[in-house]
């Protein structure tokens, strides 16, 4: 069976979630590998949440927010913009491919773009293969149950 990646997508309530919704209501098809989590703002997504998703079974994490300048909270996505590059460096230094995390700006009217982003991301993750730290969590648990 071919590898079907599991992708956790943090979508901002105001743009990207609505964008994904638009993709749905417009009857656009996209792969079911994406598990979307609605957050109030992409600035709410902490690196710890991303790493948490990666260790608990996700192969990749997609973070989507409003375009720069369009944030509902004015400065929220500026924080995401600063945080994600650092997060990628952190992943890199732990030996996890930084391409497993992607930040994309998707507005509420860009349903088609959301589909495009997801499809492109899935193709890339399929190429990268399963996430090496996924499940590290559970193996260890059994290895040292006292």
């Amino acid at each position, binding site marked *: 069976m071919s590898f079907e990646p599991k992708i956790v997508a943090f979508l901002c309530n105001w743009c990207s979630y609505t964008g994904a919704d638009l993709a749905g209501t417009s009857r656009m098809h996209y792969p079911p590998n994406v598990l979307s989590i609605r957050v109030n703002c992409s600035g709410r997504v902490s*690196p*710890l949440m991303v*790493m*948490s998703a990666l*260790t608990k079974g996700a192969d990749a994490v997609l973070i989507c927010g409003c375009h*720069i300048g369009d944030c509902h909270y004015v*400065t929220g996505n*500026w*924080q995401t*913009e*600063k*945080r994600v*590059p*650092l*997060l990628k*460096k*952190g992943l*890199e*230094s*732990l*030996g*996890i*491919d930084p391409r497993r995390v992607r930040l994309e700006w998707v507005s509420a009217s860009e349903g088609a773009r959301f589909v495009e982003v997801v499809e492109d991301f899935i193709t890339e993750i399929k190429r990268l293969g399963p996430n*090496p*730290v996924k499940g*590290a*969590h559970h193996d*260890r*648990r059994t290895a*040292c149950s*006292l």
Partner: protein
Amino acid sequence: MIEELRAHCKELLAGKRLDSIYGLGDQGGAHVPRFFSTVDELDDLVLAGKQRLIFTCRPSDQNIIALVQGQRSGLRLGIVARGCDERALFELAKLSQLSLDGVEVVGVACDRTQAEECRCSQPYPQDPRFGEKLEETFDDPAVARFRKMGAEERLAFWEHHLGKCIKCYGCRNACPLCFCKECQMERELFVRRGALPPDFPLFHFVHMMHLADRCVDCGACEDACPMDIPLRLLKKVMRGAVRDLFNYEPGIDPTRGSPFAGIARVETTHGD
């Protein structure tokens, strides 16, 4: 050098320029951080190798300087600080954990042996009164070795080292810049209770991300670790990442805040 330092400090106290001096004192052979309030006490002032001043907030809720400042307003305090001590002071002040008002730093630069032993990136305070600024860098060979590693090698390296962790929280407790009352490293959402070794890599990832823009490279985490985990390497790599991305180094400039501290937009400069 120590005699000159003592004489200088005595002068500061005797001349009523300062009320108290915080530095390392000799107590029956052990070197402990303490306050010196009289001239006679200053005979015990020492400079001791890798030992640092303590600014940590544990087990009490506040760091010692803030505690003293809170009890006596207008206190004029001298702090005998080396490079790492001073950087920690600056960072804590930027993060509103203590006030630099009324604080006078008596800067002491470390000598070459000390700097080499500590693998220090900047073994001197901004304005050293004693000792000389050593301009050469004491690069950590471990960082250069690490940079050459590929992804799989890195993963194996950290799985091995972080797998040794006994979750004693020593790295966090010893860190001068860890002061949150509610620590994410204790939060069950991220770190399961009772799992040993702690979940790889989440547990250490918390520390590493939170300190990326404030680590002053003092090495206290690694010194505190009973399992010899190369924690400082992890911190040095993240410090390097912040430098590459934002051209920012914590502890160097007391007036420049971290790019993550404010809500302002900061665009990344693309490093290597």
